């Protein structure tokens, strides 16, 4: 092994990415312009569910600047169904999903026709000329009603709206365990639909080379590699003829972990016309057409002893798939299935998820994907149980959480939690928060009947992330592996290119990967460049989602660098005429033990290996190396988030007064970036708790279809966050890192809702549905006092 001198890992390096971004020298997909570029616009269904009787695009062709127009039927040839890569059960119902509807539209926003024009203005105008006749069909909106025998069907040919049933029962028999319980609580929680709302709307540009059959596709995607494979399958364009580039991408949060119809469509149209094409969504279009997140009904039952020891947990989930199965739609709730028990020990766990089709925008991954829902349910019901038993919510958690000395711990759901210290994180958080003082103030306000109540919310979460073990993903019927690739090119001049299969869109991989490589290789941080997001330049990869990039991709960079040093060591030993074992390596310098003047640098070795005039016997030229990382386990960040909320009982408004988070994300490469991820994650978790909801009316129209109606919180609506960390290294990767992209979002939502309910519990309130709007809070108070 090498002895890396760690000057970089752990250091708050300013980001290399920022120079371009703060000066406007960006490469957003919509920036792309070229001679002859045509613009696509898409006509979308104004109805949730209808038969398409007739589509006539010919009037659009009469409009100035219009080059072509297509109905679904015109494109069906050579354009397959959009893929779902996660058929979670053998008998899952997998409906056909044409990129442009042919016979039937199944959600408001389902594409029905495409216009191609010389500029975006002409394309937008021409949409209005297209004639479509619809016969309305009944919308399917209620998850429970959708499962009734005589319910109208989203996909009539499938005979059911039930997509799948996925069960998991572990430990003892839940029903038996329940008989032993002194207390059994049953609660129903609702995960509202969310619109991910990355700031950059989606866009795609396809540049064809008709003579050679080659296509370059730029897209606002998190997954250039997966996208390439899938689009090759959907369009029939051979994979080796398709290059996918993710340039600067303006946030994703799961919404760009997708294979979208517009991407397939742009390829199909570019192939048909032999011309480059661009499509950029408007925000209001994106609210309909970019996948949504969450959308579940959770029936949760918890069984415990009078002393507050958990015995068992039962979860029945109804998950809204929306109208079609997109890339990992069915798998999202399954990612959560393993996390409902959270950090707690118990004897039995019983989980069932039923996927349900509705006539709404398809759902799929949104920051946390399954795990925020699980954490919400367990952390909410733990507070309810504490109230039932008359225990402080922290005390109830203490009595049940896995203790530090019990790691690695086989969780009731079948995972192996490798490391953690829940008590340490909680104690630190309590101190930062001033828990006892706030409890005292809460009591005082209660006693004097203050119309502004104070509530304290606790969330002691863990999550599984760093998606990861290919073997496990295979067991879960996921269509791909969970490995990640990295290669390192030692350039002849001593500079370094790190090629990564991850595809950042705000996470700062260029900076963090530079830090990792610089440490292992002993080269300056500035001398490292990171190449990503282009299937031609970074041909192998599994992309960025599920808090996996550092844990798997960063670890791959580390291991590739270790291999480079190993090769360099051989060359150095050869050149210095020393034994490999007699070489020290520090700060990029190999020296012979005992005779430090006999030395050479890794940069000199890179050049020597490049010229390759004098390589060790049997060694190939260059010291470049690659590594594919496939960790044997997920990683398990955890932490304790505490939230104090003031609730104005007259108006129902909840205002966050203080928010403390102590997270254990394992070893930290760049504390600045980690803190930023926590801030942003918590902000999105608060967004779900208080503000955001994709609201549909009774006909299935999206009511919150613009940023004027879908309330993304602004700077005024969010508090300052107090962040701190504890550190128990992950054991599944050489960095000891656990991942941080989703933890804030996972932790925050229940912390906020618990705080609101805590404030109102003396008034008889035991739950408020999300988002906890002032009206809902007011209604909860009214109902409790009625």
């Amino acid at each position, binding site marked *: 092994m090498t002895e890396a001198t760690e000057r970089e890992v752990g250091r708050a390096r*300013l*980001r290399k*990415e*920022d*120079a*371009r*971004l*703060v*000066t*406007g*020298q*960006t490469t*957003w997909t*919509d*920036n792309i*312009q070229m001679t002859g570029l045509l613009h696509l616009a898409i006509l979308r269904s104004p109805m949730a569910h209808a038969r398409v009787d007739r589509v006539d695009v010919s009037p659009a062709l009469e409009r100035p600047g219009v080059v072509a127009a297509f109905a679904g039927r015109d494109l069906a040839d050579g354009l397959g169904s959009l893929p779902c890569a996660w058929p979670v059960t053998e008998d899952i119902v997998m409906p056909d999903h044409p990129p442009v509807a042919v016979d039937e539209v199944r959600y408001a926003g389902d594409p029905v026709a495409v216009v191609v024009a010389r*500029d*975006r*203005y002409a394309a937008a105008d021409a949409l209005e000329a297209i004639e479509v006749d619809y016969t309305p069909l009944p919308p399917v909106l209620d998850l429970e009603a959708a499962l009734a025998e005589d319910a109208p069907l989203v996909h009539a040919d499938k005979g059911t709206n039930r997509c799948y049933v996925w069960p998991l029962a572990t430990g003892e028999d839940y029903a038996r365990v329940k008989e032993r319980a002194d207390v059994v609580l049953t609660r129903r929680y609702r995960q509202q639909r969310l619109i991910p*709302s*990355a*700031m*950059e*709307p989606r866009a795609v540009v396809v540049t064809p080379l008709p003579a050679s059959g080659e296509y370059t596709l730029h897209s606002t995607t998190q997954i250039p590699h997966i996208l390439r494979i899938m689009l090759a399958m959907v369009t029939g364009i051979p994979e080796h003829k398709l290059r996918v580039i993710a340039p*600067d*991408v*303006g*946030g994703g*949060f799961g919404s760009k972990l997708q294979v979208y119809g517009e991407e397939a469509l742009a390829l199909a149209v570019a192939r048909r016309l032999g011309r480059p094409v661009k499509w950029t969504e*408007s*925000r*209001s279009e994106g609210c309909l057409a970019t996948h949504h997140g969450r959308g579940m009904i959770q029936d949760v039952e918890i069984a415990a002893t009078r002393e507050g020891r958990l015995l068992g947990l039962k979860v029945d989930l109804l998950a809204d798939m929306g109208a079609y199965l997109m890339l990992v739609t069915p798998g999202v709730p399954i990612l959560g299935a393993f996390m409902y028990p959270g950090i707690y020990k118990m004897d039995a766990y019983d989980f069932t998820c039923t996927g349900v089709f509705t006539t709404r925008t398809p759902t799929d991954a949104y920051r946390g994907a399954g795990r925020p829902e699980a954490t919400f349910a367990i952390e909410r019901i733990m507070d309810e149980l504490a109230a039932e038993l008359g225990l402080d919510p922290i005390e109830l958690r203490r009595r049940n959480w896995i203790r530090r000395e019990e790691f690695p711990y086989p969780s009731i759901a079948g995972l192996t939690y490798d490391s953690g210290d829940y008590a340490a994180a909680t104690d630190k958080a309590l101190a930062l928060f001033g828990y006892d003082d706030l409890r005292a103030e809460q009591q005082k306000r209660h006693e004097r009947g203050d119309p502004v109540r104070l509530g304290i919310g606790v969330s002691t979460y863990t999550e599984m992330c760093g998606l990861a073990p290919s073997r496990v993903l295979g067991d879960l019927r996921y269509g791909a592996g969970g490995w990640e690739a990295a290669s390192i090119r030692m350039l002849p001049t001593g500079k370094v290119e790190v090629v990564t299969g991850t595809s950042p*869109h*705000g*996470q*700062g991989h260029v900076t963090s990967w530079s830090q990792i490589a610089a440490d292992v290789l002993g080269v300056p941080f500035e001398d490292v460049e990171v190449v990503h997001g282009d299937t031609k330049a970074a041909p192998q990869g599994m992309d960025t989602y599920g808090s996996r990039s550092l844990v798997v991709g960063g670890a791959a960079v580390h291991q590739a660098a270790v291999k480079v040093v190993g090769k360099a060591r051989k060359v150095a030993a050869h050149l210095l005429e020393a034994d490999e074992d007699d070489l020290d390596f520090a700060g990029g310098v190999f020296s012979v033990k005992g005779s430090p003047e006999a030395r050479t640098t890794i940069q000199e070795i890179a050049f020597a290996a490049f010229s390759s005039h004098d390589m060790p016997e049997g060694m190939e030229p260059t010291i470049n190396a690659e590594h594919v990382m496939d960790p044997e386990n997920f990683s398990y960040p955890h932490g304790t988030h505490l939230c104090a909320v003031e609730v104005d009982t007259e108006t129902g408004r909840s205002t966050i007064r203080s928010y403390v988070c102590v997270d254990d994300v394992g070893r930290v490469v760049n504390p*600045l*970036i980690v*803190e*930023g*991820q926590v*801030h*942003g*994650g*918590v*902000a*999105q978790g608060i967004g779900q708790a208080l503000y955001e909801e994709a609201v549909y009316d009774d006909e299935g129209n999206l009511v919150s279809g*613009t*940023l*004027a109606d879908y309330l*993304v919180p*602004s*700077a*005024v609506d*969010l508090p*300052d*966050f107090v962040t701190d960390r504890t550190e128990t290294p992950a054991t599944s990767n050489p960095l000891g890192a656990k991942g941080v992209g989703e933890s804030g979002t996972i932790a925050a939502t229940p912390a906020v809702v618990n705080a609101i309910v805590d404030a109102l519990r003396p008034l008889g309130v035991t739950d408020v549905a999300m988002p906890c709007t002032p009206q809902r809070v007011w209604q909860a108070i009214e109902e409790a006092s009625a």
Partner: protein
Amino acid sequence: MTRISVTVDGTTYEDEVEPRLLLVHYLRDRLGLTGTPVGCDTSNCGACTVDLDGESAKSCSVLAVQADGSEVTTVQGLARGDAWHPLQQAFRERHALQCGYCTPGMIMAARDLLRENPAPTADEVRHALEGNLCRCTGYQNIVRAVLAASGQEVAS
């Protein structure tokens, strides 16, 4: 078509434009000044914020013809050679951006604030940025960056 003359980042352009052309599309599609992005269609997100005759404006909610005879400054016009604007510097130093899509608008909105109020409080910064949405940062580092750019002490 209407003839307009607009000075953007110090260069004067004369163009024939459709009256309905949005200023942001004029900047992006006609002038190739793609540093100013578009994030919504209701003027809520502020990503497209520029300076129009000395005041911040959302360039998605201004017609190019309305900018006839005006002077526009975009994020691309802030640096003087290699010398960045203090806000650009502070945004980097305080890690006030992640994906960077909202950043041009944030910087232009913050610049407007500091011109009117050179030493704002954190609360004033938050209110000044209420029309600029960020989905990555949770705003805390953006607030810190603006305070730092104003020359005030900022807790890290």
